[in-house]
């Protein structure tokens, strides 16, 4: 078997077209890795500058009422991620700027795609674009006549007479084509590693390793299936057109149709419906800015009783801050309910889409590729959740200062000094540990593995009775 693989490679290396194509493709890959990396680093710099600028504004507040500071708020920018230089995932269509302030949970806005006219339907020239769309095609081109040409030239018969079994020959040919894809993958991973040697951590290694695994499985499926068609059909053109048809259906047609369909099966509310429902629920709670609000009055009675006093002016604390925080707490529970619903719908959509991997392994590859490179919707949602958690801490700190900082109820002109504002922590994005989210991608990996097994079984049983001439 090893000998057949060696021979296959000898033939390949002797082909000038193959060498020319490979060199051109490797150069394109190299350019995509360099550009991807350069763009991500530039984006990181832009992000850091923006973050420093906004932080500087915050720590420069001389004196301000804490609740006014909650309205002044801050901004969080979606950080760039070095892994996303391999697969950008959803990053160019999600927003980049999120305003953090009191009373409201804003949406992330200003996506890259919204800042210019349309360019590419398939994203930027990242390695993932070449690895997902172009490499499989190269493998198909390499594999479609591997067996049929041997049949036509009579070499297949010769090999069998020399003692090789048809199954061994077909598997060897599959492996030799697959190896080409794997070598391209190794090249990408090594260059990426060299360029980012200082940033490599165990987490990055695990993620890149799994990224590598999912592509190797997909390449095996494509190579195996093409060699199988080449063995089954007498005509190489038929093998090529069948496999091209499958490639088109998998990568262009089915993945797109399925993605559009899952959004219809599990619909998200419109923005207006969502906001109206949130507003409706919030109106049932406490209005922090309205001293005559019924629930506010009930809270007032409760606090007066707790402190054993008759009026707000006798309170040792500022009741305004407490009312504001009660308003926030209620708002947070409303947010949890509604955003939780949206997250559930998005999760259902993802699960349904993942099941599409049963008929289309390309879907599993897409999911794992952006998932392992931390650029899928799951990672985006986790980022949003971290920002919301930060918002809660941020606003609570300001409201607590208003309540317990030494001011009296109704004294809105009271101000805190710069030391306090400097002590309010900045948002610090903590990348999600891969170990906590791996279950989300198990189905994709399992489906890719099952597809690989199916291909081996197809080759094993489907080529038993192939004509050797």
């Amino acid at each position, binding site marked *: 078997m090893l000998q057949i693989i060696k021979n296959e490679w000898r033939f390949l290396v002797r082909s000038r077209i193959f060498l020319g194509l490979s060199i051109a493709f490797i150069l394109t890959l190299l350019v995509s890795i360099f550009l991807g990396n350069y763009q991500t680093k530039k984006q990181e710099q832009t992000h850091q500058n923006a973050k420093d600028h906004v932080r500087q504004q915050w720590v420069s507040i001389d004196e301000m009422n804490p609740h006014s500071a909650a309205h002044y708020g801050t901004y969080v920018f979606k950080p760039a991620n070095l892994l996303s230089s391999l697969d950008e995932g959803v990053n160019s269509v999600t927003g980049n700027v999120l305003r953090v302030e009191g009373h409201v949970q804003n949406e992330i806005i200003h996506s890259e795609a919204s*800042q210019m006219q349309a360019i590419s339907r398939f994203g930027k*020239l990242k390695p993932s674009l070449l690895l997902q769309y172009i490499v499989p095609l190269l493998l198909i081109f390499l594999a479609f006549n591997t067996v049929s040409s041997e049949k036509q030239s009579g070499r297949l018969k010769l090999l069998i007479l020399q003692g090789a079994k048809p199954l061994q020959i077909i598997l060897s040919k599959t492996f030799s084509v697959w190896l080409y894809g794997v070598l391209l993958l190794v090249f990408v991973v090594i260059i990426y590693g060299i360029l980012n040697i200082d940033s490599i951590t165990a987490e990055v290694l695990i993620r890149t390793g799994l990224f590598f695994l999912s592509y190797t499985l997909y390449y095996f499926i494509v190579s195996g299936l093409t060699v199988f068609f080449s063995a089954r059909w007498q005509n190489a053109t038929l093998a090529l057109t069948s496999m091209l048809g499958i490639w088109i259906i998998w990568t262009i047609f089915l993945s797109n149709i399925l993605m559009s369909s899952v959004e219809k099966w599990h619909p998200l509310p419109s923005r207006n419906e969502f906001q109206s429902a949130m507003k409706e629920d919030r109106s049932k709670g406490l209005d922090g800015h309205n001293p005559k609000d019924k629930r506010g009055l009930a809270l007032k009675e409760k606090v007066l009783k707790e402190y054993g006093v008759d009026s707000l002016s006798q309170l040792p604390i500022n009741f305004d801050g407490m009312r504001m925080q009660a308003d926030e707490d209620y708002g947070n529970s409303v947010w949890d309910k509604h955003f939780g619903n949206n997250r559930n719908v998005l999760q259902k959509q993802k699960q349904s889409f993942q099941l599409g991997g049963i008929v289309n392994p390309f879907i599993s590859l897409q999911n794992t590729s952006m998932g392992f490179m931390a650029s899928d919707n799951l990672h985006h949602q986790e980022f949003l959740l971290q920002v919301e958690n930060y918002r809660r801490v941020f606003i609570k700190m300001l409201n607590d200062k208003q309540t317990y900082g030494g001011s009296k109820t109704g004294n809105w002109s009271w101000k805190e000094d710069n030391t306090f504002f400097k002590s309010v922590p900045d948002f610090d994005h903590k990348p999600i540990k891969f170990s906590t989210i791996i279950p989300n991608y198990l189905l994709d990996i399992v489906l890719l593995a099952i597809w690989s097994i199916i291909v081996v079984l197809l080759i094993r049983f489907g080529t038993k009775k192939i004509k050797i001439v």
Partner: protein
Amino acid sequence: MRPLSIFLYEWKHFFRSPFKIVAVLLFMVASIYSLHNGAHLYEKQSSEIERLNKKAQLQKETLVSYFENGEKGPKDRPWVDNTKPFWAIWNTPTYHYKKPSPAIVYNIGQTEQYGFYKSIKTNSSPYDADMAKEIANPERIQSGTLDFSFVALFLLPLLLLVLLYNIKGSEAEQGFLPLVFVQTGSKNWWMISRTVFYAIIILLVLFSVIVYGAVLTDISITDDAFWNIFLWVTLYLLFWLIIYFLILRLGKNTVSNTLQMIGVWLLFAFIIPAATQQWISIEKPTNLMIDIIDAKREKTDDIYALSDELIDKQLFELFPSLKQTEIAKDSVRIKRARRSSMEALINIAMKDATASIEKDNQSKNELISKTYWFNPITFFQNKLNHLSKTHYNDYQDYRNEIQNLADKRTKIMVLDIWNDVKVDKVKYIEYTKLFSNVK
């Protein structure tokens, strides 16, 4: 051999090729599915707009009822006085919409990148947080909705490839190419006739599905959008016909022709647009809107810190007629009027900030346009986006309208405050009409 005979032979060949028939059928299914996606979005946006209009109408009726009952505002908010221009204008609900064009059925374009309605206030900006796009799965947006333009721009060349790939190559491999040339008299004529045959089939399919799309969103057959879409899709088909014809004409066998055809498709559909996008994002990185943030914070703070004299000076420069008003001469009442008019100055600062962002975006767009000559799919995509009013520029026009409405609202508010206008039911209704009108 006459073209009709070549057509008849090709017809037989076509009917004996299940692979080609399946490809045409799949293309039709994809087209119909994609048209329904477009129509679904059109209906969704139209019904949302209708719903918001009803909501605004209800709010207006509530306000009118206050005037009819001699009340100043809601009882639980005693500080609200709708007889004052500030509060009446604050409580005039005005939504401005980017109404979907019926041609959206053919091309969703950049629709899903932007919001399509906006509640206008005096402090509104086209870059406010409520301009966020609709809630949607970002993975679906990233992979792109299967709209008709996707079918036309990406699947049409593939369908053409499937229909044309074995022209000449198949005959050459079977060894009867010289015989064909003897029978037809001209190699070019024979190949052109066969290619035209498939072009006609595709044109018929395209015309049928475009008519089907027109039915879904009630586009009239006399509508410019209908014929323009058909014209540009036909030109796009012609572009690919020429490329594929040249490959087939110069090629020697089916396999090599197929590989070249798919290679060119990959180059135009994937590599060139993706490389262009990568280059643009390096050349002009994503704007994180720092200018707007600065205008909202530092510049707003600066305006609030201005002395009364400087505020008056700036307001009088902006609205010269204010100087002559009674309030301008009243040292007590001017204080409240001045405070309520500060938004006009903040509005100017915000407009300066958004202008720099728009200039930046415009320069990105100019860079992209310069790549059209070697980036045909991006060119055709943006052409279709223009036709279905879903191009960046259409949303820029929408943002400009929002800015104009906010300017108008601010101006009327300032003038009415300084002229001490008393708002009643008639005046309020006048406001509602005035603020909804972009012109």
